[in-house]
């Protein structure tokens, strides 16, 4: 190829020829740069008339080699001269891109302010929901039944298999590990107490909450977020349809209704797993297990578990919708908000669970 960029140093002047374009220069860039650097020393006469092409990348390269001044004598075609002129017109001192410095107090302060703003926003969303509920009570014809049932189906019915699988395995694991310990104390029969209290009261709700936050919570944030990116939310508003009644409320009510049911289901499957493991490990018959369960685990534990499911479902959906509504129209914001939604939902669930534990410490624990 005769079009390759090349550079000759003749006595008294430097001759460039060929096509000096980015694509042609790339394969031999180091060689050309070294050649230019060597040629610049002492040579102030340049002959560029034999160039077939010159693009701005090459012009920048030349201009840098010339150390930002025109050579003493320069032979160059008019077209190519204009390209170099464009480069020469740029300000010499390029401002380096600003590097954001992070100070620790500033970082923490900003983080706290953001957390406070999020909390405030969620309270505002909660208030909006209450207003919407009053509005719907006065106008029952506007209740979005279809969206509500769709959300119960999506967040509830479709989550049955995965929660069952995880619940079953957790039940088996806890039962197996507890059985090993209890056996050494000769307290085999207490496996019913341990499984009953821990799964129904604590593990079932928290386990489902973590699964649902990852599964349905992230889906809600992403869906509302994309609806914001594509301006679908705005389209709804222009049709006079309230976004909170049609989009947010059905999601929150749907998950709040579906969660206790999921908790019941998962706890049941986990208990079943635990019973199976106890049967294999301790020879404890299923009938004995079921007969003793109501005796050693007061029914209030079940109510606490279901109540937790109810609150957790509400919290997860509220957090997910809040972050979804705060997605800005770019991909980065969508991913950041989805992450925040899941992390915040799980953290809040654990927090609420601790509050539950404190306030219900007198309830449902059998005193032997």
């Amino acid at each position, binding site marked *: 190829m005769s079009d390759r960029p090349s550079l000759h140093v003749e006595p008294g002047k430097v001759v460039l020829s060929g096509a000096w374009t980015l*694509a042609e220069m790339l394969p031999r*860039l180091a060689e050309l740069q070294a050649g230019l650097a060597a040629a610049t020393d002492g040579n102030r006469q340049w002959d560029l008339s034999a160039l077939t092409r010159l693009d*701005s*990348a090459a012009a920048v390269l030349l201009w840098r080699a010339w150390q930002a001044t025109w050579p003493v004598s320069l032979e160059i075609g008019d077209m190519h001269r204009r390209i170099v002129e464009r480069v020469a017109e*740029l300000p010499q001192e*390029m*401002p*380096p891109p600003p590097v954001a410095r992070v100070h620790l107090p500033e970082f923490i302060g900003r983080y706290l302010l953001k957390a406070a703003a999020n909390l405030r926003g969620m309270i505002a969303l909660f208030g909006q929901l209450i207003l919407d509920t009053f509005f719907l009570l006065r106008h029952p014809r506007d209740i979005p039944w279809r969206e509500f049932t769709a959300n119960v189906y999506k967040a509830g019915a479709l989550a049955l298999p995965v929660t069952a699988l995880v619940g079953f395995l957790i039940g088996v694991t806890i039962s197996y590990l507890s059985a090993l310990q209890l056996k050494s104390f000769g307290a085999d029969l207490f496996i019913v107490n341990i499984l009953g209290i821990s799964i129904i009261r604590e593990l079932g709700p928290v386990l489902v909450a973590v699964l649902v936050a990852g599964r349905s919570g992230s889906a809600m944030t992403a869906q509302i977020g994309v609806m914001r990116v594509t301006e679908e939310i705005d389209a709804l508003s222009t049709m006079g349809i309230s976004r909170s009644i049609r989009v947010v409320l059905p999601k929150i009510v749907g998950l709040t209704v579906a969660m206790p049911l999921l908790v019941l289901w998962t706890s049941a499957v986990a208990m079943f797993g635990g019973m199976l493991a106890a049967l294999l490990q301790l020879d404890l018959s299923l009938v004995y297990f079921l007969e003793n369960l109501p005796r050693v685990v007061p029914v209030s534990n079940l109510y606490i578990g279901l109540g937790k499911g109810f609150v957790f479902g509400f919290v997860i959906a509220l957090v997910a919708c809040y972050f979804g509504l705060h997605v800005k129209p*770019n991909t980065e914001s969508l991913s950041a908000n989805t992450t925040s939604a899941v992390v915040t939902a799980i953290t809040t669930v654990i927090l609420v669970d601790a509050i539950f534990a404190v306030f219900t410490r007198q309830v449902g624990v059998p005193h032997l």
Partner: protein
Amino acid sequence: MSRQTVIELDGVCTRFGGNTVHRDLDLCVKEGQIVGLLGGSGSGKTTLLREILGLHRPDAGVVRLFGVDLNDPDIRVQRDIRRRLGMLFQHGALFSALSVYDNIAFPLRELRCLDEDWIRRLVHLKLAMVGLGVAHGKLMPAELSGGMVKRVALARALALEPELLLLDEPTAGLDPDRSQNFVELIGELQRELGLTVVMVTHDLNTLAGLASHVAILADHRIIAYGTRSEIMTIDHPFVTGFFGADRRKLL
């Protein structure tokens, strides 16, 4: 001086399901031409553009850019071909997570050969070319107006010094004044850089202001291809319907 063939489509057929989009379509674009691609809605203009870009593989036929088959199995050949073309997408397709500066610097950085100072100069040069200042480099794509998005997208398309520039509706969504500016900008850059340009457009003013040649896509193929004045003489229902009374405007 015989001009090099930049784009060559040979017997291209495209079907989506049972729906035929292109049948035996031929097109040959020479270096330095500005081709306006016209066609009714749904006639497959954007699909044709995607096939030229290699984003969509035709069911039959060959697409050659700079004499190289786009289906060349060598990944390096494919990559080098793509570095010789720039595409301006209809809605800009700017990377929304990156600032304007980083959007333009991105293809340059991907070459992994240029140092930061060189990249910085090139980015500022491209920004100046499309009439934007250094300060605009810090903005995020979400903060730009429609016209600025197009300008930044054009700057990004020009970043790798392409020889072929493809434009999908370059002036759609701009007001007449801005769109006139944008047309002048592209025309100026084309003359200066010696680009070959293929554009899809519905706008007669854009076409009249920019195109040296016109290709008309109808009945699943290019029914006419020639200079603007040649196209005017063609008697085809689409041509008469499209230009209507405005025929003279194009001349």
